[in-house]
């Protein structure tokens, strides 16, 4: 097992190196960055972070991003729950084709949708709102949520449904009170993946916003100015975008393994 440990340690080191470099840059002054390569910050500074936390045009970017990501996650799960139940429990006309069509949307290139989404959301007056981005991200997150949830629901024995109906539960009562708690870990995994894919997407989020709902990822392009790149600030903003993801992974670490175990991502 020694060889396995070496392989893994090396791989993790390689994974961490670019992230370390980003953190390293974020703690340096710009003079230090451009004056030569240093392996760690010699003049440790938190100035870059202070600027982000005190400038509303910076931190509002984070708030906007979190807003549409949470909105999208809630929407995707709420819509996908009944659909996933239908797919896992019943056969109906066109079910297989429908499932494939849904999945194919998970694979659709965002670039294809950028321009029509811009037209569509401008036409219905949602342009530059978090709701527009949240709805747009449903394109790939709803099919994904249906897929993951269907896997978890198929793992719940059908006898439970039948017993509940015999006991006189109505469908909605049964679904909310009994069934949903049974697939709680599935919902956790789904929330994780919806959060993840909405959080990392930029192309649609940037196309559908201009000022008021601008995501942090788009704000980051501001660091290019006439006087050159503000590398330190850019790196600090980058580090701060990694943190929410890291937090989310930490909370769902035990569920991820389960979600992956179903082979559905």
């Amino acid at each position, binding site marked *: 097992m020694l060889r*396995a440990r070496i392989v*893994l340690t090396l*791989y*993790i080191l390689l*994974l961490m*190196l*670019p*992230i370390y470099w*980003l953190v390293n840059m974020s703690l340096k002054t710009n003079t230090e960055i*451009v004056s030569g*390569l240093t392996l760690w910050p010699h003049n440790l500074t938190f100035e870059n972070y202070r600027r982000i936390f005190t400038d509303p045009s910076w931190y509002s970017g984070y708030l906007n991003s979190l807003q549409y990501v949470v909105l999208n996650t809630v929407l995707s799960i709420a*819509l996908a729950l*009944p*659909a996933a139940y*239908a797919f896992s*429990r*019943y*056969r*109906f006309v066109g079910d*297989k084709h*429908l499932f*494939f069509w*849904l*999945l194919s*949307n998970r*694979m*659709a*290139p*965002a*670039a*294809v*949708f*950028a*321009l029509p*989404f811009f037209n*569509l959301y401008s036409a219905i007056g949602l342009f530059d709102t978090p709701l527009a981005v949240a709805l*747009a991200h449903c394109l790939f997150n*709803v099919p994904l949520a249906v897929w993951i949830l269907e896997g978890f629901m198929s793992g719940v024995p059908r006898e439970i449904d039948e017993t509940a109906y015999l006991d006189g539960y109505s469908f909605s009562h049964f679904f909310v009170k009994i069934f949903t708690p049974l697939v709680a870990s599935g919902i956790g995994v789904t929330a994780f993946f919806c959060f*993840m894919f909405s959080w*990392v997407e*930029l*192309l649609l989020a940037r*196309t559908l916003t201009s000022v008021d709902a601008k995501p942090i*990822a788009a704000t*980051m392009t501001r660091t290019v100015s006439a006087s050159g790149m503000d*590398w330190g600030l850019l*790196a600090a903003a*980058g580090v701060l975008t*990694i943190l929410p*993801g890291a937090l*989310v*992974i*930490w909370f769902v*670490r035990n569920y*991820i*393994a389960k979600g*992956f*175990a179903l*082979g559905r*991502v």
Partner: protein
Amino acid sequence: MDKPVNQGAWLLVLPVLLIVAFSAILPLMTVVNYSVQDTFGNNQFFWNGIGWYQELLDPSTDLGGRFFDALWRNLLFSLLILLIEVPLGIAVALSMPRHGWRVAATLVVLALPLLIPWNVVGTIWQIFAREDIGLLGWAVNRLGIPYNYTADPLSAWVTIVAMDVWHWTSLVALLCYAGLRSIPDAFYQAARIDGASRWAIFRNIQLPKMHRVLLIAVLLRFMDSFMIYTEPFVVTGGGPGNSTTFVSIDLVKLALGQFDLGKAAALSIVYNLIILAVCWVFYTVMTRMDAQRN
């Protein structure tokens, strides 16, 4: 697995159907509409039939040449990253601990790159690979190998492939690991008693268990690399020249940069059809595999 037939289930699927139709079919109809028309501005449109498609699929025209160049480039890129990420992912998955606290710790660390916004992945590598302020670029140049991703196409390719491997190998590894976890310890003990070699265990016990997840991993990695946009765009902007302009980058240039709506729309439709076809092949193979297993 005999599920009861119930047409009422359609009602449960309806909300999903509506939202996906709203975000997929409606926009696609606009795209189809644009793809058969030409415009000279002023919101005046003219019927152009299959003109754009003919131009797009003919490599001797300007548009067609551009499209096929981007397409081959994109396929080469997908092939390269699959060739690296799949074996590397398997190797990492095989090295992961099976018990104890290290499992959770390893999972968290491996999943980290997957949760970084794609443009930040680009930013990380943009900084990391620069020859003046980046550790990688600086180190490679110190070794006497000329490396500059903004000027040299080969360096640009190496950077983008390395970035994708860094970004996505974890996904392959985590999927494979999930497949491996379903193997009971008794199998390994039996293999040890039989004196099976490391290779024999891999070939006969581990690989068969990873079959399905590997298929999913290849599908996801192919699709996502085939529609890659943000990461290379941040690092190279499609350059130097056009050397890293992939299909999505080209499409966004056409649609949002030049507002060449007809051409962009025709390209979108063809692009989507290719993806749909590949997706369908994978889906059929997968359902057939499931049917065999049951």
